[in-house]
């Protein structure tokens, strides 16, 4: 398939494509809103049509044709194989051990994949109050693997988290707009793949700790036309009220 030139896609699109390529057909994914939802739905629209999407709103096997804005949009319930309560989705399904891949994002990540989505600054008087834990700690603990998706900037890739919301123990890959990091010795994240046109030095410069880079980082492929077309077809609905 023809590949697309760098200028023809955004960093977010590259992230979604890189994450989607890591999903195999039949995998069960616990998906949040935004980039993770894009990646998982892109996988479904391309090479992994039987990828199973589970949203924390209790929709199991949702098959949205457009990206939902919230994790509880009506289309998720309408297209799901089953809709269960929130206590059940966290108890029987996530903690129950049925999910292969959990997707997470955060405001900060450290070299061990630990995540902060709680505060910037001190907890008692934060500079920025972030949304908080949500399902993240138990997603990271309950899924077989955790994929993190996060734009690569030194204020996000930090030496020390302001708050540890989610332990990084289960993180098996971090997809950024520059490349992919994977845990190496003692769980420290190492840059193992670079997106097209990105150098290891750029990634180092965007990381707040002394980033380890694998000997010969893989060179990622740009999105091909099919991937880009499928991704753009998932465009979220516009802001108007949709009568159902």
């Amino acid at each position, binding site marked *: 398939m023809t590949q697309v030139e760098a200028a023809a896609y955004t960093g977010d699109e590259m992230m979604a494509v890189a994450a989607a390529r890591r999903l195999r057909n039949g995998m069960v994914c616990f998906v949040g*809103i*935004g980039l993770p939802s894009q990646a998982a739905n892109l996988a479904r629209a391309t090479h992994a049509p039987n990828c199973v999407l589970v949203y*924390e*709103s*209790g*929709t199991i096997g949702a098959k949205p044709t457009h990206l*939902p*804005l*919230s*994790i*509880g*949009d*009506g289309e*998720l*319930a309408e297209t799901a194989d*089953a*809709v*269960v*309560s*929130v*206590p059940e989705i*966290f*108890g029987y399904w*996530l*903690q129950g051990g049925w999910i292969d891949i959990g997707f997470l994002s955060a405001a900060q990540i450290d070299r061990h994949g630990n995540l902060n989505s*709680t505060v910037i600054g001190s*907890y008692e*008087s*934060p*500079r*920025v*109050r*972030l*949304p*908080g*834990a*949500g*399902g*993240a*700690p*138990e997603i990271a*603990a*309950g899924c077989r693997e955790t994929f993190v998706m996060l734009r690569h900037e030194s204020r996000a890739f930090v030496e020390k988290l302001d*708050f*540890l*919301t*989610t*332990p990084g*123990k289960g993180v098996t890959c971090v997809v950024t707009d520059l490349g992919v990091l994977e845990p190496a010795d003692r769980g420290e994240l190492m840059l193992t793949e670079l997106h097209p046109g990105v150098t290891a030095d750029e990634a180092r410069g965007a990381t707040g700790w002394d980033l380890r880079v694998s000997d010969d980082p893989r060179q990622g492929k740009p999105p091909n036309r099919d991937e880009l077309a499928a991704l753009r077809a998932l465009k*979220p*609905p*516009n*802001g*108007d*009220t*949709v*009568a*159902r």
Partner: protein
Amino acid sequence: MAEIVSVAEAVEELVRDGDAVALEGFTHLIPYAAGHELIRQGRRDLTLVRMTPDIVYDQLIGMGCARKLVFSWGGNPGVGSLHRLRDAVEHGWPEPLKLEEHSHAGMAAAYAAGAAKLPFGVVRGYEGNDLAARTRVARIRCPFTGEQLAAVPAIRPEVGLVHAQQADREGNVLLWGIPGVQKEVVLASRRSIVTVEEVVSRLEPRPNAVFLPSWTVTAVAVAPRGAHPSYAHGYYGRDNGFYERWDEISRDRERFRNWMARHVLEREPLPV
């Protein structure tokens, strides 16, 4: 047996200053009509309980109704921050807000424990992070395996408020679509108010439906479009545009107050 009354009467009679109230609905069926009535009646010092505060709690907090927030994820879904929530936490405006925060799994287990009238719920969580030290959680040891788990205190609000699609004339309630923790919050609460899209003569069985018998509900009130800008499956869709516009409306204290005065206190309908 649930009485069928107006939203104003239900709130007037059942919600007191200082109560712990839970307005639930996981993205779907969020009880905005009831929340706006709390604002219009000027309730104060509420402990607001809700997994995902959403815009309705941003409004209650910004209007000075809340003393404390118990929650697990406080953002504007798919959009960004809840600016009134942030302003209260970061700058104490309009007054300081105490936080008790959980993970979704913890809070869901706490509601389920409340519904089962158990004093605590158990989850495998709150481990290896900074959250445990900042919230109400305890370690508990399995008497059979020795494993250490997390115990979360049950949530038993004074008043649970949810929105549903339908009630019948006896006050039985039916909701369908994403059920969230609505059943749990009604069963866990000491008193409950259910607003509905409409009263029908007969509730029909449906896939994914939750039935709440009249004898579990304190008051039922009719509030058509009472979940807007959230949605009511089968009635109207989520107003994603409003969620996006709220970001701007709520950023500025004055603009927020003016908007609330006009559209909530004076009930001017939103432009369609």
